[in-house]
């Protein structure tokens, strides 16, 4: 029986080069034949690993983009150590800016498509609000902007003191975050392996399940200062949607989101439910904005086979038409 659980884990189905490394962060460039002028830069959430976008061939968002003829780049936010405690959100935004300029120069184009996922999409919005001229299209996947919801994770975040956590631990550890995410539904998530045990002969199901598990438990820590800023300014004070969030003394104005925007949300998302995104979608002045709704959860949106049949062809088509 055990043999069936021994899944050989090899994330990343697409080939890429790491074209720039900068302490904690790096920029990846995927190999492929680009037919369209405008490159796509993916900014994934810094609390998980970005290979979820290319977990394996059948459910790879990256592969879909490459196969459509797009030139795909991705930021890897790395694994912060104790010495990275003092990184701030501003450092992340600065690196996006560096990557955008790097790609614009390499490709000789004035702007790019910026594709963010979860907290990586929150960073993409902040960046785009300051640099709308460099962003041709903005693609936002399960993006939290309105943090005051009745969602359990939001309620918990509103009742913790992030300064005490970063003071004691240095960084918010990935293990602690994982335990919190599982504790949101302790019986349902704690017993999800029962289905695997029942279907031990189903190799496809076992592979899907343990590939996901490898990704779930490969969680980088969040740098202490980033965590403080995220919890106190975004969760406690909901500064982003209120238009009060400042970066380096400059206010993030959502009225600057005038470029074409594709927003993808998941109905069963228990981490960033639709109400974290919808007020933002309604608020931005972009004249060319589209909302795609998946019936999956936060991660199923990216890796479920049904999303790859229903949602991603539409999303890729939207990007291609504007590239």
């Amino acid at each position, binding site marked *: 029986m055990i043999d069936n659980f021994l899944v050989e884990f090899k994330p990343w189905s697409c080939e890429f080069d790491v074209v720039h490394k900068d302490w904690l962060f790096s920029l990846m460039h995927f190999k492929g034949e680009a037919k369209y002028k405008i490159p796509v830069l993916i900014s994934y959430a810094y609390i998980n690993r970005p290979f979820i976008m290319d977990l394996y061939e059948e459910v790879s968002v990256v592969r879909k983009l490459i196969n459509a003829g797009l030139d795909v780049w991705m930021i890897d936010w790395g694994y912060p150590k104790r*010495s990275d*405690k003092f990184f701030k959100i501003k450092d992340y935004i600065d690196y996006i800016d560096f990557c955008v300029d790097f790609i614009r120069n*390499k490709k000789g184009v004035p702007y790019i498509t910026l594709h963010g996922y979860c907290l990586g999409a929150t960073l993409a919005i902040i960046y785009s609000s300051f640099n709308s001229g460099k962003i041709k299209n903005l693609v936002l996947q399960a993006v939290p902007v309105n943090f005051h919801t009745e969602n359990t994770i939001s309620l918990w975040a509103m009742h*913790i003191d992030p300064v*005490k956590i970063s003071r004691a631990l240095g960084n918010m550890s990935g293990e602690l975050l994982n335990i919190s995410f599982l504790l949101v539904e302790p019986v*349902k998530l704690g017993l999800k*392996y029962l289905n*695997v*045990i029942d279907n031990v002969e189903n190799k496809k199901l076992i592979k899907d399940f343990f590939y996901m598990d490898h990704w779930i438990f490969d969680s980088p820590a969040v740098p202490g200062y980033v965590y403080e800023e995220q919890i106190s300014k975004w969760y406690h004070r909901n500064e982003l949607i209120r238009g009060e969030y400042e970066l380096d003394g400059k206010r993030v104005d959502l009225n600057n989101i005038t470029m074409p925007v594709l927003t993808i949300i998941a109905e069963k998302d228990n981490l960033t439910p639709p109400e974290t995104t919808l007020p933002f979608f309604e608020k931005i002045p972009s004249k060319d904005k589209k909302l795609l709704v998946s019936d999956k959860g936060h991660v199923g949106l990216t890796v479920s086979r049904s999303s790859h049949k229903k949602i991603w062809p539409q999303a890729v088509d939207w990007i291609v038409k504007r590239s």
Partner: protein
Amino acid sequence: MEELRREELLELFKALPKESFELLLRNISIRERLEELWKEHASGKSLGYGERFEALFEEVFRFFFRPLEITLRGFRQLRLLLPLPELLESLENQWELIRAWRDFIDSLFSHFSIMTELSLGITTPPIVKSMIDGFRESWREKLERYYRHYYLLDVEELRVYTDYPLILTKKTTQYLLNALDEWEQFSGYYMEFKDMIRNTYKTAIREFIEIANSKRFDSFQSFRNAFIAISNQKFDSLLRSKRYLEVQGNMVSHLMDYLYRTRRFFEEMFENNPINPFATVGHVDEAHKRIMELRRKIIELEKRINELEDQKEHGGKIKSRKRTGGDLK
């Protein structure tokens, strides 16, 4: 479910993330227990809250409780630093051990002296032999002097414990006392947190038992799904309730303060000890903070230099940007 062999378990441990390995094994055990309950239910017997449901609770929640309980036990580290009677007794036992060790070292020294004496007499010219003898003798004298002082200190050592609060700096003592207070608060909130989880589980199980005893589930799957659905619903209400949010928030807060103050206590002790050769985490953090600030300034300067060069060469058009870290391609 067939029994897992030891070698298979090892292979599984190597192949899976640690958490998946643990949760998978726990789920195998949970499935077996649920199946036993299902068989009892299917045979027409009434279910009751007993050992088996209690064992299920432990299997489901151990994963969540363990990190907190490890921290609770970590308190022993601090307890070892207090001059408690049992610790003084254990120190006495340690002296016995040290004396035995000293006797062993004396014997070893004698052994080497004899062996050297014998071998030097055969292989070495007299002048070298006398040099080595002299060196050995001077070492012996040094050690004897050390032992004489050591015995004197032996008695003095006990006074350290009577003077304990006066030996540490005030700040150090305060961190220790505050850490103990925080631990007490944390353990209180942890107990309440655990009770809330246990009580919610019990409420869910009672409801599940009531349903199971009033109707027949036609399959193990539906029996199991009902167990999960009812538990999930009860926990969803608990985990969003006002009291739970307060308890969890306070528990995390006091836990973090306990960890921070304990670390600061040790840091203060080391930082005030002139023979301590190590930098503390606090020192290293401060260095990293300053490095980060300098790095930001360098990046900002590089950016401005690039902009100026661009303006000069390309009339403002974007040119490749250099940045600390460097291009790989």
